[in-house]
């Protein structure tokens, strides 16, 4: 209060004036400096968070890396924690199978929707549709899981599996091996719907960054709307669209609860799309209860988390680097 008074009424305490003004200035600037330093510390803390994730998970996983060779861990399919056998192959193939199915089902509709939103729709309708797609992104994964259990699993069991088995049953990939609907395909369908909003949002943004001049040049040459879109716009935005797909892939790769609820959870290498599978994420989530009571079990699970983390970091880095380049070009 006092310094302010002095500034407002300079004739009071004239002798003190220069010193106090100086004081005010000094407190203000020292406050500024203090806040700057603390903000800087917080920002740097952000920058070291990802390495901290890797280091801490690595430290927890080290016992298993020391007692088992990496090759056995990754390529052995015998999973008997009580006997000290930790082969991740069923889980890694489970994750890959579910993610692949999700991408095959999910990528075409999301890219078509992204193109439609970005190129064909009137901006006003687009601004009505984008919030709906955001809403899809906000739904918790447990809800997706419930939807899968209630809708997708019975649909596969009663409708899709008999039909596909009848048509394509000669190939082991499509053979009906599993009386329930819980399996790779159910997980893939649920994940496909979960990656829609991510791929659509990123791809739509990338497609819209293509300059209008390129489209106009193509129209001037007599190309139709789709010819322009496919040969000019999509070619120009191809790296960005791929980055969007990669982001969707890494989201599907690490998704836990929804997959856990519909995928069947049997530790075997899946051979048919109807087979039950057991992805890495489901393994970690399912074993939290018993992992502290069996030696090396918790290290093995943290190793699984480390594998997930490293793959996701790799994919994210790749797609972010592509997207950054698009933003600045």
């Amino acid at each position, binding site marked *: 209060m006092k310094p302010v008074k002095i500034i407002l009424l300079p004739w009071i305490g004239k002798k003190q004036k220069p010193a106090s003004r100086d004081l005010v200035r000094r407190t203000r600037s020292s406050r500024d400096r203090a806040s700057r330093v603390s903000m*800087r510390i917080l920002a740097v*803390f952000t920058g070291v*968070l990802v390495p901290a994730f890797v280091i801490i998970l690595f430290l927890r996983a080290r016992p298993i890396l020391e007692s088992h060779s990496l090759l056995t861990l990754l390529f052995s399919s015998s999973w008997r924690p009580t006997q000290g056998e930790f082969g991740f192959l069923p889980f890694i193939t489970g994750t890959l199978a579910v993610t692949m199915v999700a991408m095959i089902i999910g990528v075409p509709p*999301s890219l078509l929707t992204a193109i439609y939103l970005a190129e064909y729709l009137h901006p006003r309708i687009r601004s009505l549709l984008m919030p709906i797609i955001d809403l899809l992104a906000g739904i918790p994964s447990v*809800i997706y899981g419930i939807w899968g259990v209630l809708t997708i699993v019975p649909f596969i069991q009663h409708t899709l599996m008999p039909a596909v088995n009848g048509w394509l049953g000669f190939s082991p990939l499509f053979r009906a091996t599993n009386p329930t609907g819980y399996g790779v395909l159910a997980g893939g369908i649920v994940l496909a*719907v979960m990656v829609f909003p991510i791929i659509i949002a990123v791809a739509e943004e990338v497609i819209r960054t293509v300059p209008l001049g390129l489209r106009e040049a193509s129209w001037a040459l007599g190309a139709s709307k789709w010819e322009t879109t496919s040969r000019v716009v999509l070619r120009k935005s191809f790296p960005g669209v791929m980055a969007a797909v990669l982001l969707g892939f890494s989201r599907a790769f690490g998704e836990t609860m929804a997959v856990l609820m519909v995928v069947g959870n049997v530790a075997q290498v899946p051979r048919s799309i109807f087979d039950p599978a057991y992805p890495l994420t489901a393994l970690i989530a399912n074993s939290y209860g018993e992992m502290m009571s069996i030696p090396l079990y918790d290290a093995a699970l943290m190793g699984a988390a480390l594998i997930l983390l490293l793959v996701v970091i790799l994919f994210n880095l790749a797609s972010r680097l592509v997207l950054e380049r698009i933003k600045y070009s």
Partner: protein
Amino acid sequence: MKIKRKLTEFLVNSLMVLSTLFVVGCLLLILGTVIRRGLPALDLAMLTQIPQGGYYLGKEGGILNAILGSLCLAGGATVFSILFSLPVSIYLQLYPSSPTTRNWIHLSLDVLWGIPSIVYGAFGFSLMLFLGMRASLLGGIIVLALLEFPIMVRGMEEAIHMIPVELIESSYALGATRLETSLRVVIKQAFPGLVTAVLLATGRAIGDAASVLFTSGYTDQLPYSLLRPAASLPLAIFFQLNTPFPAVQDRAYAAALVLTVIVLGLSIISRLLSARFNKNIIR
């Protein structure tokens, strides 16, 4: 030739309309399923009671423990996360720092955004083992705060970025320091965007199950201590669905409806708020 082009155009167009309808239809289908199965099972006792003895066999009780637990977890995490993400986003947007540092931090935030929540759970669990903590409300709050952090920073940075540079520069020209400008001009101007970012992140935290599975555990009691385990809605849904009794499974659907209403409500409130606050903003 002309017919072929017209045909392609028509075909592609209808494919695109179909897939857009499909995507929107999926949302409606999900909401429809949850409402159709959840509404009949929902009653007042579900919302106002904690599980009584034999609840998981179909006897009476409710999920008040999970509802309150989820609100405490997400609320605490949001407060924690604001304390970290607001300074970081202001720093990244307003304060001079070398492009290398800035790029590194942005890349790190992007990677954090992409890390699956089960890995957050595993990380939090390892961290708690190092610190000697047990599964508790506090542990869940810390992990959820970490999970919210990248989402919040991204939204807040966008909000701050939207402020006209002239406004910030005029504040500097009047002699305000960066701190004063941030507190009195930037936060006030970016407020709607900041609120949207916060609510978005809160919605994500409420719905997340995989990360609290390890860190906050589950209990049938109300959350009354930071150092005790706390229940959460997504886990309540998950556990009830895994029981073999149809009566308990019905309650899982009702709990799912509650969770959906909370999450969508947050999302809609944030939109309405930002539309409302936008009136007071200088553009």
